[in-house]
């Protein structure tokens, strides 16, 4: 099955505030879409709407293919060593090849370290290891480069590039420049209500 993501005429309301409206988006295999905008315009809300976790105030989202998400929440048990915390998701996702991703993200030496001791950038890399293990074709990345050093940024970009070469979709919300060939850049300000 080919990965597809279509959103039509999305509007998002948080509390009493209408953040944006009339936003549409179509992606197919291999596409990278970047969502830009200042803090608080609704990048994260849009990501959560597209991934199906939040109901849009108006409009529709259709997707075919499993969905993976990275946001500011790690979903790894802070008290467990990284290896054990990742192992739960790997068992759930029935991950086959874990070594390659761990090598690329240079996480192998950290597997015995409890998650709460990891730095911001190391946590972000751990989240990518969790995502890459899940084998889902549609990736939603909310601020994926936060806290990463130059080298880690490169590995993460390589990971996303590999994912899209294999027919995946990546939707990236970031105000930073991602060093990737972006098919479409959406500035949320253009849809501000």
């Amino acid at each position: 099955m080919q990965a597809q993501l279509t959103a039509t005429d999305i509007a998002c309301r948080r509390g009493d505030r209408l953040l944006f409206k009339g936003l549409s988006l179509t992606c197919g295999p291999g596409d990278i879409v970047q969502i830009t905008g200042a803090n608080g315009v609704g990048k994260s809300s849009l990501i959560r709407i597209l991934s199906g976790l939040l109901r849009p105030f108006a409009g529709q989202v259709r997707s075919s293919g499993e969905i993976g998400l990275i946001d500011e929440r790690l979903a790894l048990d802070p008290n467990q060593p990284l290896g054990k915390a990742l192992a739960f998701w790997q068992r759930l996702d029935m991950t086959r090849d874990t070594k390659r991703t761990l090598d690329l993200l240079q996480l192998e030496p950290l597997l015995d370290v409890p998650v709460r001791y990891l730095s911001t950038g190391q946590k972000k890399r751990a989240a990518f290891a969790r995502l890459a293990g899940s084998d889902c074709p549609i990736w939603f990345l909310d601020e994926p480069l936060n806290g990463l050093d130059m080298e880690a940024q490169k590995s993460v970009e390589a990971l996303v590039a590999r994912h899209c070469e294999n027919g995946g979709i990546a939707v990236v919300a970031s105000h930073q420049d991602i060093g990737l060939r972006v098919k479409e850049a959406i500035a949320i300000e253009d849809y501000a209500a």
Partner: protein
Amino acid sequence: MSAPLTILRRDLGLLMPGGSGGGILPLLFFLAVAMLYPFAVGPDAQLLARTGGGVIWVAALLAAILPLDRLVRDDLEAGVFDQLALRGISEELSMATRLVAHWLAFAPLLLLATFPAAALMGLQGETTRTLLLGLLAGTPGLAAVGLTVAALSATLRGGAALAGIMVIPLSVPILIFGAGALARPDPSALLLTAAISLGLCAVAPFAAGAALRAAREV
């Protein structure tokens, strides 16, 4: 291993004594209450034997409240339920496994601790048996109420204190019939306790799951 078993294993790792959730605390609390009560009312063996069963029930109810603070909140804040939902694992399923894990983490130890507690109160063998059967029938219901309340209050500030206050009135039916069985020789009160428990366990995953979904909209 299938997904529900994998999740159950993780939940048990979090909640069981020796895990990261402080699973031994309810047991210590339960025993502490059972030890304090004879000090408070004095060594009148008849009074202790008559009221001891009820006190053990109240202690069990209060002990069941202790783990609620971290039962749902930590994973909700860490985005675990979001990640599970994205994998097609419904909130109802993750709440059902958590209900099982929560019960396994506090109830069996509590049942064991009932023996020393009953000895401290000087309860008769027959009374201890009714007490144990009552707790066995009632604790799943307590766990179900606790889970629902924990999920409902997970996003609220001061949710832990609120959870305690919300659990107590909802547990009253279990307490009335469970502790009431001690005063009557026939088993109908025990059966009614079990029925209430079953009903609560059936509803809890759906109620708690709906609470988790509602928490996303906050």
